[in-house]
């Protein structure tokens, strides 16, 4: 079957159905994916999703790269929250190598991961509002993503594709400016988020557009492999941070918000509440760091932790380890490991098989966007075109993660 052609072409000349190519570069889809829809007036009769427009063969490339060179690939999966991907990958390797991470490093990572979760949810929720016609909220809350990017910049030097961290910890300690910026964010963001909520939560137009639209049952959500805010909006309290805590999430006190019907309004509310919970977690982490020994930002594993350049130029051992690590000559056990983290869109899994070579024998990414999106065409049947557009926004499909 050639899916460049509409699959359900209606050859009946008397038919009133219209074929619409939604995408691949439609401004309303916020990403590169195509849906060939059959429309009866404004109502969608059937649809076929075509994906893969930005497929970059990451799994194949990963089979030819040492561990450190795979981190930049993970940046480009869900590029709205790349630190979560980076750290998820580093934690996978740490699990493989049985590295124990000091508590302070865990907490620093938690701060960055929760900031990126907020950035991810800001994008999704403001875009839902934007697609229902509320530009103000989009412009208003979006500046806080900029503030989060400034914090990334302070910590790792990059903004979007962060390549943050190392196997065994972080590349450098947070400086005072970074802490000051985080504190400033914690003070200002709740005010803005509150205002954002008061603009939308009880907004008649917004509720009319979202409540009761694209409802999903729990059975369907589980059957289609949904995870993350989408699954929680249906009322299932599954969160990897709680069910299999990584990076010391068990030390934090936070709640998992759930919805009831799985409609777009519930997804919006779940994401909003998760932002509040993330703020709570960051506040706790900032408190906890104070009681940890200062200046520790990586585990003491010189054979795996890429040393800083200053060390490499002045220290023989660091030079040797640097060479070995960059060339992939590290002594990793021959084993297979699956590690999952709670990404912005759901369970982000890394399935790594190591055979003792310089590079992974096989690395598979379990990408939540890819798996969540498989229901979209089916869901859209019988829906209005304009509802399908906000449904797509509320699923927060990130093309990079969809196509890998």
């Amino acid at each position, binding site marked *: 079957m050639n899916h460049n052609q509409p699959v359900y072409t209606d050859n009946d000349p008397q038919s009133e159905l219209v074929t619409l190519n939604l995408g691949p570069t439609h401004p309303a889809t916020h990403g590169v994916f195509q849906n060939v829809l059959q429309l009866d007036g404004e109502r969608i009769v059937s649809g076929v999703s075509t994906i893969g427009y930005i497929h970059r063969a990451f*799994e194949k490339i990963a089979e*030819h790269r040492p561990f450190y060179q795979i981190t930049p690939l993970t940046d480009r999966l869900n590029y709205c929250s790349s630190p979560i991907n980076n750290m998820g990958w580093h934690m996978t390797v740490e699990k493989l190598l049985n590295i124990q991470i000091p508590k302070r490093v865990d907490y620093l990572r938690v701060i960055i991961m929760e900031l990126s979760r907020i950035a991810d949810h800001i994008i999704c929720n403001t875009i839902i509002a934007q697609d229902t016609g509320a530009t103000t909220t989009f412009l208003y809350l979006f500046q806080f993503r900029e503030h989060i990017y400034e914090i990334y910049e302070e910590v790792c030097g990059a903004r979007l594709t962060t390549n943050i961290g190392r196997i065994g910890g972080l590349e450098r300690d947070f400086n005072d400016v970074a802490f000051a910026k985080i504190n400033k964010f914690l003070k200002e963001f709740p005010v803005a988020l509150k205002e954002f909520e008061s603009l939308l939560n009880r907004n008649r137009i917004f509720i009319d557009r979202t409540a009761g639209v694209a409802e999903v049952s729990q059975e369907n959500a589980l059957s289609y492999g949904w995870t993350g805010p989408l699954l929680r909006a249906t009322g299932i309290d599954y969160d990897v941070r709680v069910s299999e805590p990584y990076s010391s999430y068990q030390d934090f006190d936070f709640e998992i918000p759930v919805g009831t019907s799985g409609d777009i309004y519930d997804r919006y509310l779940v994401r909003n509440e998760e932002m509040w919970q993330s703020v709570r977690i960051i506040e706790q982490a900032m408190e906890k760091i104070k009681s940890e020994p200062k200046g520790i930002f990586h585990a003491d594993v010189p054979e795996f932790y890429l040393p800083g350049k200053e060390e490499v130029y002045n220290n023989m051992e660091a030079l040797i380890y640097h060479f070995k690590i960059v060339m992939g000559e590290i002594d990793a056990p021959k084993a297979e490991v699956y590690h*999952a983290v709670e990404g912005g869109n759901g369970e982000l899994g890394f399935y790594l*098989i190591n055979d003792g070579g310089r590079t992974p024998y096989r690395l*598979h990414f*379990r990408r939540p966007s890819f*798996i969540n999106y498989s229901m979209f065409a089916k869901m859209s049947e019988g829906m209005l075109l304009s509802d399908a557009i906000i449904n797509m926004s509320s699923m927060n499909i990130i093309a990079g993660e969809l196509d890998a």
Partner: protein
Amino acid sequence: MAKATNTELIDLLGENFGEQLFDVTEPYGLLTFSTTKDKVIHVLSFLKKNDKIDFNFLTDITAVHYPEKNQLAVVYHLHSMVRGIRVRIKVFIHENDPTIPTAVPLWNAANWMERETYDFFGVKFEGHPDLRRILNMDDLGVHPMLKQYPLEDPNRVDKKDEYFGR
């Protein structure tokens, strides 16, 4: 409900399947076993429908190519959210006859996961409702994740894989 342990799961599966499951290991605490392709759907549906263990969630389907053994391993990751346990099931199939029954009747999520596995490894899932390529173009002609296909132009002398990684 209390978290299930691997021992509990091994006992339960041993009772029901016995010798049909083999190569049981626990790398990093994740119970892994192999089965054959004519039994795999039986095993998957048992795990899904069993009230005691309740593997309600299909986390992932993928494949691994082992060219020296002329084999492909199809790997299933299941998750019981109720009992808080994961399991990994492998099915080794011959690379010249890469067929395996589909899991779509059990989980709809298997649809795209199997299409992806077909696209990259050429594993033909028998009974799949819509088995066609998903990420690559239709006329690619090869299944690119198989190990015989190099990442870059093999004629380049400056970038031989043996010097840089695999």
